């Protein structure tokens, strides 16, 4: 029975897919979605029956752009909406990938705020793919041709989203324009704590790994270079940090793969346990090359030090 439902949902998803973009037929018929257990009045759903383009999205979602369509399931009684979206997402390597989702079943959000849908991810290979619950899309009551909402995917979020209703003949010949990235509120209290004495001083690295180049002979240098690369966290074998001055500046010394690197952190800021800073490669007056984003308090600071394409996962403790 579950398999039958899955096939029906997938069939409906594919039918909807055929109606979203210009590359697909515009028949738009959707069939096969089972009647939802919870009924939402059709007048509550009707304002959402539209085609949309994504205009803004929380930066953490990793979505570049996207299109979406909601329409009533054909022949359904009582009527219910089914949605389909095509999002262009950033892969870990920075390439653009396509992610397809259907949104079903609809449910009413509390206080008449709008509608919520379970986000079902459609597999990469449509006819052999599978639909799996992957999050939730909430759409708030439309304001003119704009609809705001929030999205949860892959266990992350919620991220704010904003869509614009597309006109009847409005179509994109290629991928839709890049959506504005909404950045989360950043800490803005200066320093890394309420009092300078809380965070100024000499720190030691507490998450150092064994030097991978130590027993590598002629290969040591290339290992050292490679271990300092990537966005998932370079291997740091030793390091230290000094925080001093007003405004406070942090000097970070790291050894990665046998290579010593020095970074200067400026614009130190905090909010709650959040700790952020700008990262420079060549002193505080050089152009910033990345950011430090982490957490801290009670003499400890840990997080990701981002320099260009490299991310160093560090944890420091204030020396006693």
């Amino acid at each position, binding site marked *: 029975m579950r398999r039958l439902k899955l096939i029906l949902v997938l069939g409906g998803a594919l039918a909807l897919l055929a109606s979203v973009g210009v590359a697909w037929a515009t028949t738009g018929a959707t069939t096969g979605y089972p009647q939802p257990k919870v009924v939402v009045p059709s007048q509550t759903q009707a304002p959402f029956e539209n085609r949309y383009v994504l205009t803004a999205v929380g930066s953490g979602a990793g979505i570049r752009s996207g299109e979406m369509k909601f329409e009533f399931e054909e022949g359904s009684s009582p009527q219910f909406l089914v949605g389909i979206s095509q999002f262009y997402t950033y892969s*870990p*390597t*920075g390439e653009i990938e396509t992610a397809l989702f259907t949104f079903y079943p609809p449910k009413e959000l509390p206080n008449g705020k709008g509608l919520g849908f379970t986000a079902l991810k459609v597999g990469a290979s449509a006819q052999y793919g599978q639909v799996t619950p992957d999050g939730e899309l909430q759409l708030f009551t439309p304001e003119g041709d704009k609809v705001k909402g929030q999205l949860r995917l892959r266990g992350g979020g919620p991220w704010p989203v904003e869509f614009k209703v597309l006109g009847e003949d409005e179509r994109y010949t290629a991928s839709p324009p890049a959506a504005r990235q909404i950045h989360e509120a950043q800490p803005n209290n200066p320093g890394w704590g309420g009092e300078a004495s809380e965070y100024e001083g000499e720190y030691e690295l507490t998450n150092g790994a064994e030097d*991978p*180049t*130590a*027993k*590598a*002979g*002629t*290969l*040591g*240098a*290339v*290992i*050292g*270079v*490679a*271990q*300092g*690369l*990537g*966005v*998932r966290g*370079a*291997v740091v074998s030793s390091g230290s940090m000094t925080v001093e001055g007003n405004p406070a500046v942090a000097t970070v010394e790291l050894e990665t793969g*046998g*290579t010593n690197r020095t970074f200067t952190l400026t614009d130190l800021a905090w909010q709650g346990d959040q700790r952020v800073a700008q990262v420079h490669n060549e002193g505080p007056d050089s152009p910033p090359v990345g950011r430090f984003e982490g957490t801290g308090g009670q003499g400890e600071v840990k997080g990701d030090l981002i320099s*260009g*394409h*490299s991310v160093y996962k560090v944890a420091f403790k204030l020396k006693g």
Partner: protein
Amino acid sequence: MKSKFRSLASLLVLAAVGALVVAGCGGGSSSAGGGDFVSGAEAACGSANKQIAALGTPQQEQVTRYLEKTEAVIVKLHQEVAALDGSGAAETAYTAGLAKAIPVLTAMTNAARSENFDAVRELSSGLVEIHLGELAEEAKLKTCAEVPVSES
């Protein structure tokens, strides 16, 4: 009689010297040509280390070129060391370690060409696992055990 005795004594001295020479050739190495292997490999490693050190520490955009050059240096080093035909267990293990490093370096270079730097880093663990420096030490290759120090 005196001259016969002298001839016999000379023969004995020659035989002793010959035995010493043969013993000397095998001393300290498991192969007959071990001395040649060590000196030849050390010279090749010295040159390789110098070339790698001269590459410096690359910026992100220079990593592909750096890996291409390093790969070429290691390929040449392997050819030179393999040509020395070391027959001892340690010498064979060191030569095999170099051979094992080449496909890993090729994969890293290809990953860098695709700008997949996470893959470059992850693949480099394959080089770490070879422990080439330790293999060099076991083969009495002091220079080969050294990590090239970047000139910049």
